[in-house]
């Protein structure tokens, strides 16, 4: 098995599916000859030709709008939004159209498509190259929202997303693109959507996280272990549809929960995790359900290291929750 970065795993997933299925195509801004600003699509135009991997004009609405039409007419488009921050011009196409097409047409028309987009901070990108907008999409019935945190999952989940009959927003933690490496099988395999991954077992405190926060939580869990606190770390992987049972099981297991994400706290995805627990597992809780998140401000630039949850903040929350 090859050892790949998360970025290479994404590229491998695209290549694998494009080889296997002629109806899969890739497009977006700068994804063609340049191979994407992060090089996730490098080499695809060369291998599959400009009809199946190509650049578009600078219009996210056009990218996602045309992808919907392609998907409704038999293709499996995988389009790229260069930074998640730039997905908002296409918000209407995603929320009003892709997510609602199957429902509103009584199942006559569907939009099996994937929107890939790098998200999150850590590259000194300021307000508009750092955001984590998952909560905007996770509130949207009809859409699936997937965020990998390892190369293995990135490839397996992306292939599953491409094969999925419904539209999938596939958010890639850009901070991990090159910083995590892992073994990735060659060829085709999938990781089921709507399943969580237990990153680490522990009996004292459960930590829910996803994407770029997973390694941060792992480090915090390791530090907690040194102090004798055993942390159970769960990578949610698919935010929508969420495996609610798995979340509740993991929460009940320890009775102590910390939820971690980069996005702002207020109405963030963590709120849903807390709410599920407050509704279905409150009797098990022995401590407040804490959230460690980005602040309720736009994303800053110079001080982004203060903004983003780090090992220290997660560890503080684990300690406070364990000792409550």
């Amino acid at each position, binding site marked *: 098995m090859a050892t790949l970065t998360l970025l290479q795993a994404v590229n491998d997933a695209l290549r694998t599916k494009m080889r296997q299925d002629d109806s899969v195509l890739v497009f977006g801004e700068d994804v063609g000859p340049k191979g994407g600003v992060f090089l996730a699509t490098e080499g695809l135009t060369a291998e599959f030709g400009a009809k199946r991997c190509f650049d578009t004009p600078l*219009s996210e609405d056009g990218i996602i709008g045309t992808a919907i039409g392609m998907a409704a007419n038999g293709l499996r488009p995988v389009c790229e939004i260069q930074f998640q921050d730039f997905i908002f011009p296409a918000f*209407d196409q995603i929320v009003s*159209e892709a997510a*609602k097409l199957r429902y509103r047409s009584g199942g006559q028309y569907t939009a099996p498509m994937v929107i890939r987009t790098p998200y999150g901070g850590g590259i000194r990108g300021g307000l508009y190259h750092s955001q984590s907008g998952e909560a905007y999409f996770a509130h949207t019935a009809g859409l699936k929202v997937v965020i990998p945190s390892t190369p293995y999952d990135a490839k397996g989940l992306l292939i599953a997303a491409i094969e999925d009959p419904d539209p999938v927003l596939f958010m890639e933690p850009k901070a991990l693109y090159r910083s995590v490496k892992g073994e990735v099988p060659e060829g085709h395999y999938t990781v089921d959507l709507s399943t969580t991954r237990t990153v680490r077992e522990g009996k004292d405190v459960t930590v829910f996280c996803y994407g770029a926060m997973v390694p941060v939580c792992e480090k915090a869990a390791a530090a907690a272990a040194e102090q004798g606190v055993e942390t159970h770390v769960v990578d949610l992987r698919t935010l929508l549809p969420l495996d609610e049972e798995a979340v509740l099981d993991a929460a009940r297991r320890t009775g102590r929960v910390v939820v971690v994400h980069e996005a702002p706290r207020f109405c963030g995805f963590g709120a849903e995790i807390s709410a599920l627990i407050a509704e279905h597992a409150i009797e098990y809780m022995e401590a407040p359900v804490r959230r460690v998140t980005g602040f309720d401000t736009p994303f800053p630039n110079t001080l982004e290291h203060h903004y983003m949850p780090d090992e220290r903040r997660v560890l503080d929350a684990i300690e406070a929750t364990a000792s409550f």
Partner: protein
Amino acid sequence: MTEMMSLITEDGSAPAYSGGLSDEALLRCYRTMLLVRAFDDICMKLQRSGRIGFSVPNKGVEGTQVGAASALRSTDLFFPSYRDFGMALYHGVRPAAMMNNMFGNAGDSAKGRQMPVHFSFVDPIKYFSISSPIGTHLPQAVGAAYASTLRGEDTVTLVSFGDGGTSSLGFHSGLNFAGVWKSPVIFLCQNNGWAISCPSEGQTASDGYAIKAKAYGMPGITVDGNDVLAVNQAVAEAAERARRGEGPTLIEAHTYRMGGHSTSDDPTKYVPKEELEAWAAKDPVLRLRRHLDSRGLWSEDLEARLVKECSEEVTAAVREAEAQPAPALETVFSDVYESVPDHLRRQGEQAFDLARRKGDAAAGDGAFPL
């Protein structure tokens, strides 16, 4: 405004028409327009009497709808607007199928989930699911056309929208992508004078709408939208170009919305009376009738028979629709995804349970077959 193509002359003849409509097809156009009018009429009545919630007047714009539909094949792709009854009817969508949508009943192909006039059919033509947000379907049509081309089909995609729709994001991205991709797409802008209460001159400062094609490197054509032959010819030519791989066309059909925007609208507040009267004289049905007459294809008898048939057809459609029950409660929860995820299944079960307790569970409710 770019010069307007108009073919049916005052006396009903159309010497410059070079499109391919046979006598039979012309009669089919005419009959379809009468059927639209009958369907439209009855919907207004159904709405006034509270039997349906909403409709959009089609009176005045039937010529554009039918002229365009008659220039295309039933294998072509249609991305219509909500005010395009005639495109569906011309290609054989059953009035009852449309009426089921107006009632939002169990027979509705959209399962009663959409407002009236938001049709969606895959048979007998691909009549793409209409949504309310204006303009979103333009890039979608371009994407669908891309798929056709990639598979080597010679399908043409028609996308229809209003003068108001030209201000939308979808207009800009749709036409721009189509230009760059040389898509086999016909953009049919039905300039019917109004976007609700905004006159078409208030929508843009451009000199007409067809000229906007220049911004996207495609031909722009202005056509008399109340002249079925002119619309047919313009669309047929655009379709030919598209099938030859020569790319998209923007067609502005100059027509007029003779009713309100919808049954919720009171146009007397903003439409000048003289304007309405001037357009009444240009009624597309009368216009085509004069042409048929000039070709000896029309008679009072034929008219009476067609009017009667159309009226019966839509009355039967209403009967059929009214016989249908409301959609089953499960339809609230299905088709969100291909399969029902756990959380929705649980929400559905709670809803069935409540409906049972409240005693208003309709037939089929509570059995989740998904």
